[in-house]
């Protein structure tokens, strides 16, 4: 499997993502946002960071950069797209995932480790490494991570099994106390209906190296690597 990690001005997790992908056996190349092609990539990763300084809205300007037409075409063909943190924001702004990410309800930039619960639902190569119901921890680092969608959209997303990750407590229970940013229904990660586009606020690529204190992001990325093209 080959991955293209997109670099926007202000991306700062692009090299981390490249290294983490390498650690699970996915070769990746960095693709500049001004390019109009992504090459022969099976997986496109939109990394975390502060593309365009978060100007106007987080991810809004990046969503209109030249490379995104190629990323959208890749997604329409059924290609895999993974958006982490700012990448999730870009995916919602580009219309590849529904909803929007608002400023954290507590108004603070959050940089800490949170508990997450993997939900079953739509089958996806991007979440194949997550056992439904599994509770694990990952770091978050964001200012605009409060997931929002209209209630009827939320009902539909839940009904279609598109909610892939929820913030929770160590026992796996979700509620206001374990919801760090006020996200609707504690949503931390979301798939599109077809299951080939996945956005999440937590950073699995920052938890793939024992030296850095955690390898809890490894199963998620390794699961993508193990998925074979039909």
């Amino acid at each position, binding site marked *: 499997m080959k991955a293209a990690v997109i670099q926007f001005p202000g991306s700062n997790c692009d090299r981390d993502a490249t290294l983490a992908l390498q650690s699970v056996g996915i070769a990746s190349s960095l693709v500049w946002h001004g390019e109009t092609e992504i090459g022969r990539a099976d997986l496109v990763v939109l990394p975390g960071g502060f593309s365009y300084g978060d100007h106007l809205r987080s991810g809004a300007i990046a969503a209109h950069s030249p490379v995104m037409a190629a990323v959208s075409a890749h997604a329409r063909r059924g290609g895999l797209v993974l958006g982490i943190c700012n990448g999730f924001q870009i995916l919602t702004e580009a219309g590849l995932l529904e909803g929007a990410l608002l*400023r954290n309800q507590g108004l603070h930039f959050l940089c800490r480790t949170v508990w997450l619960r993997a939900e079953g639902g739509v089958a996806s190569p991007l979440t194949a490494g997550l056992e439904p119901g599994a509770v694990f921890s990952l770091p978050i680092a964001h200012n605009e991570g409060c997931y929002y*969608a209209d209630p009827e959209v939320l009902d539909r997303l839940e009904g279609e099994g598109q909610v892939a990750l929820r913030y929770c407590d160590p026992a796996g229970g979700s509620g206001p106390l374990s919801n760090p940013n006020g996200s609707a229904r504690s949503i931390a990660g979301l798939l599109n209906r077809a299951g080939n586009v996945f956005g999440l606020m937590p950073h699995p690529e920052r938890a793939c190296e024992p030296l850095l204190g955690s390898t809890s992001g490894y199963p998620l990325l390794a699961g993508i690597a193990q998925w074979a093209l039909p």
Partner: protein
Amino acid sequence: MTVLARIRVSLKPSILDPQGRSVLRSLRAQGATQVQEVRIGKLIEMRLQGSLAEAESEVQRLIAELLCNPVMEQAEYQLDEVEG
């Protein structure tokens, strides 16, 4: 002709504005007891070349394309002819 567009973008009424609430608390603490609600948005000013009608259709296009995310925001605008 030059047209000055003032575009106000704000969170949809259904969305909680924690920044506005924080400012409301501060204002109340300073004795502003009449203030009932505060909501914070942004003002985008731009100058456009062309007639008012041309400027209006362009502003509407730009709002839909980039300036406002209708999932969470709403936009309104005002157009004025100004000295070039």
